[in-house]
């Protein structure tokens, strides 16, 4: 081969470009934080009782949330793995994907409607003659909300592990007459052991950096996380020093957690199999069956109740009045604009990184370098939105009016937030397409636009659609940096809902919540269908 028909440098350019942009964005934020931090004494941190309490509480609530979410997710995932066939199973699995798409603030509204002072639970208790109990604001509410989001997530992450137990193992278990307990100790536990620390760390990290839930349900300085403390320091106390200190602290914690997840790696014991199908032998036991369906019922009810409450209280609220309010439509337009721009940016950046990383991995066999490249897509996990926002704030404040630039800042941060999802959803299929078709394409000289049109697009439109839809839904529902940079002129729908909740305009809030929920779901479903095409299952 004298000349390669396509200069392979083309495959490096996109990734390098995206990484340069990321470096610029993150570098600017870093620069701001570091400049502001000169002169700060780290020792101040531990002398400050408030800060110490915030750090301890952040760790404590994340620990409890992880424990509860995983403790409940394990029996639920096991029940779903054991009961492969019951009416509505696939619908239930899809329902478990909802908390990823439902805006946090909307779910919080639903949770208040169920578990709040005048919520469904207290009304039921009153019907039975009990006094209403106030347990929602503070640790209780934070835990309920974190379990609402992370229980389904953990179930969805754990379930494939069960399904990867080969039929041959069940055949052996049947031959040897293993009971459910034996299977738990000898088959299921060894299969879960390498996976559990990864899932636990992921859930812990999500709860550790949780913002909207703690902001709305935290209730006072006694239950505040670092992420919320940054917001309060900037927005209310205007204490740049403290905000910087907290941001740096958050950064160090997150970097440690991300490093821990990476170090755990992917040590999966691969079970050899001929693809034999054999049901597990412990399905007919009646108490086991009851327990399984109790678990499935529990997750169904706990997921459906808050969402149902959003729908019903929205429908009985002052619909006409809220829908006639131009503020709602301004906010909707702004949210939609931010969501569409940021999701497009996220997918473009993700594809750019992935083009380069798959070239490195497959054609150059530089796996380490490829993984490092892909890790850039997860920067937001190390530098959570509010930390990034603080950095931007410090850098931009002397130069421009931060609040007029805020939509751009929100778009950038939201795109960064979506990027890890893009990498996760689009990465494996993109690698697979290259593995399977690279040589064929090279031998037929299919390249450039033709390759995109005839090979990549038909094979990748489904994951591409899914990642775009996920990013858009995530951005539509995001209440993070917008709380920091929002203003009279820049109010997204989640911020509007938050303001109405904070102002105790419950009727307006109910309708706004339903509106936002509908918008998120429509956006998610619409983009997934439009870009992804019809799902072929």
């Amino acid at each position, binding site marked *: 081969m004298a000349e390669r028909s396509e200069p392979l440098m083309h495959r490096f350019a996109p990734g390098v470009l995206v990484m340069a942009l990321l470096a610029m964005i993150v570098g600017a934020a870093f620069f701001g934080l570091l400049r502001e931090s000169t002169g700060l004494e780290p020792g101040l941190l531990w002398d400050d009782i408030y800060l110490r309490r915030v750090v301890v509480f952040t760790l404590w609530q994340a620990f409890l949330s992880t424990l509860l979410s995983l403790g409940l997710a394990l029996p639920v995932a096991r029940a779903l793995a054991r009961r492969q066939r019951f009416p509505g199973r696939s619908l239930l699995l899809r329902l478990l994907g909802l908390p990823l798409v439902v805006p946090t603030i909307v779910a919080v509204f639903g949770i208040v409607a169920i578990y709040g002072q005048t919520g469904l639970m207290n009304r039921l208790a009153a019907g039975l003659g009990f006094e209403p109990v106030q347990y929602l604001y503070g640790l209780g509410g934070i835990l309920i909300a974190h379990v609402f989001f992370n229980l389904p997530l953990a179930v969805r992450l754990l379930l494939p592990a069960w399904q990867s137990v080969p039929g041959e193992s069940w055949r*052996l278990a049947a031959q040897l007459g293993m009971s459910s307990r034996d299977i738990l100790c000898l088959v299921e536990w060894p299969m879960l052991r390498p996976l559990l620390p990864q899932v636990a760390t992921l859930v812990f990290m999500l709860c550790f950096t949780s913002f909207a839930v703690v902001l709305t349900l935290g209730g006072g300085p006694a239950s505040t996380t670092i992420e919320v403390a940054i917001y309060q320091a900037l927005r209310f106390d205007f204490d740049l020093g403290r905000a910087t200190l907290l941001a740096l602290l958050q950064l160090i914690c997150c970097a440690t957690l991300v490093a821990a997840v990476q170090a755990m790696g992917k040590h999966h014991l691969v079970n050899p199999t001929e693809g034999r199908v054999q049901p597990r032998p412990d399905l007919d036991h009646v108490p086991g069956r009851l327990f399984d369906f109790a678990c499935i019922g529990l997750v169904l009810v706990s997921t459906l109740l808050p969402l149902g409450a959003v729908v019903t209280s929205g429908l009985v609220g002052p619909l006409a009045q809220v829908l006639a309010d131009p503020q709602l439509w301004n906010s909707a337009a702004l949210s939609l604009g931010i969501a569409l721009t940021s999701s497009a940016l996220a997918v473009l950046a993700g594809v750019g990184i992935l083009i380069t990383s798959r070239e490195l991995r497959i054609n150059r066999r530089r796996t380490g370098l490829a993984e490092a490249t892909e890790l850039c897509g997860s920067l937001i996990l190390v530098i959570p939105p509010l930390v990034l926002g603080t950095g931007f704030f410090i850098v931009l404040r002397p130069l421009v009016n931060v609040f007029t630039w805020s939509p751009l800042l929100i778009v950038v941060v939201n795109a960064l937030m979506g990027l890890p999802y893009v990498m996760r959803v689009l990465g494996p299929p993109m690698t697979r397409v290259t593995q399977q078709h690279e040589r064929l394409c090279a031998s037929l000289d299919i390249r450039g636009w033709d390759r995109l049109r005839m090979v990549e697009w038909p094979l990748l439109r489904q994951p591409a659609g899914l990642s775009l839809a996920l990013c858009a839904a995530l951005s539509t529902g995001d209440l993070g940096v917008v709380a920091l940079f929002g203003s009279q002129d820049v109010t997204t729908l989640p911020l509007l809902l938050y303001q109405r909740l904070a102002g105790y305009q419950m009727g307006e809030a109910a309708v706004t919540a339903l509106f936002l929920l509908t918008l998120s779901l429509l956006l998610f479903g619409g983009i997934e269908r439009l870009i992804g095409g019809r799902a072929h299952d």
Partner: protein
Amino acid sequence: MIELDQVTLVYPGMTLSFDLSVDAGECLALVGPSGAGKSTLLSVVAGFEQPTSGRVRLAGEDVTESPPASRPVTTVFQEHNLFAHLDATANVGLGIDPGLKLSRDDHARVALALDQVGLGGLGGRLPVELSGGQRQRVALARALVRRRPILLLDEPFAALGPALRREMLDLVDALRRAETLTTILVSHHPEDALQAADRSAFVSEGRIIAIDQTARLFSSGTHPELSDYLGRAE
């Protein structure tokens, strides 16, 4: 000892029917092309497959409805007989107690069984640290400690080379005589049957076409399908 009484299995596009009786302590070989239903026949005896009609009797008892673990049967499969995360001792020990609660006596039995199959001292190895032949020896050791009177061998040595296969068949032969096990051996190779089986049955398209003393069956030449399978021109 093993009785299949007008057993039929109906699948889309294929119906299998078996009528078979194997005496106590006998070794019967099932030979035939792949897809003929040999493994399905074993699965019916072991209880992994339910017949559409007919009865399965083992040691005089009707077990048609019984789950695999309660039948007087143990099976060694072609592959994946072992749990990958458990060492050889634990994999054998599962045959005594499926929850691995073993007494000191049980441990002695496991060690003895490993000795019997020629793996003395290798009990601490994980399956990945053993060769293919050694893994099948572990599976045989487990079959021994289970003390079931019926041993089913589903092409357990198909992946091994000829010399190793002969060696393993000798081992099986010695073990089943020592323990008086009723044995069914599924194989692709007539020489396996000639080496280890008292009688052999030729299975084709879901039924037993011929059954006879092993040497006589392969030399009779009265069954055209069998001749085709063996590749002998008449």
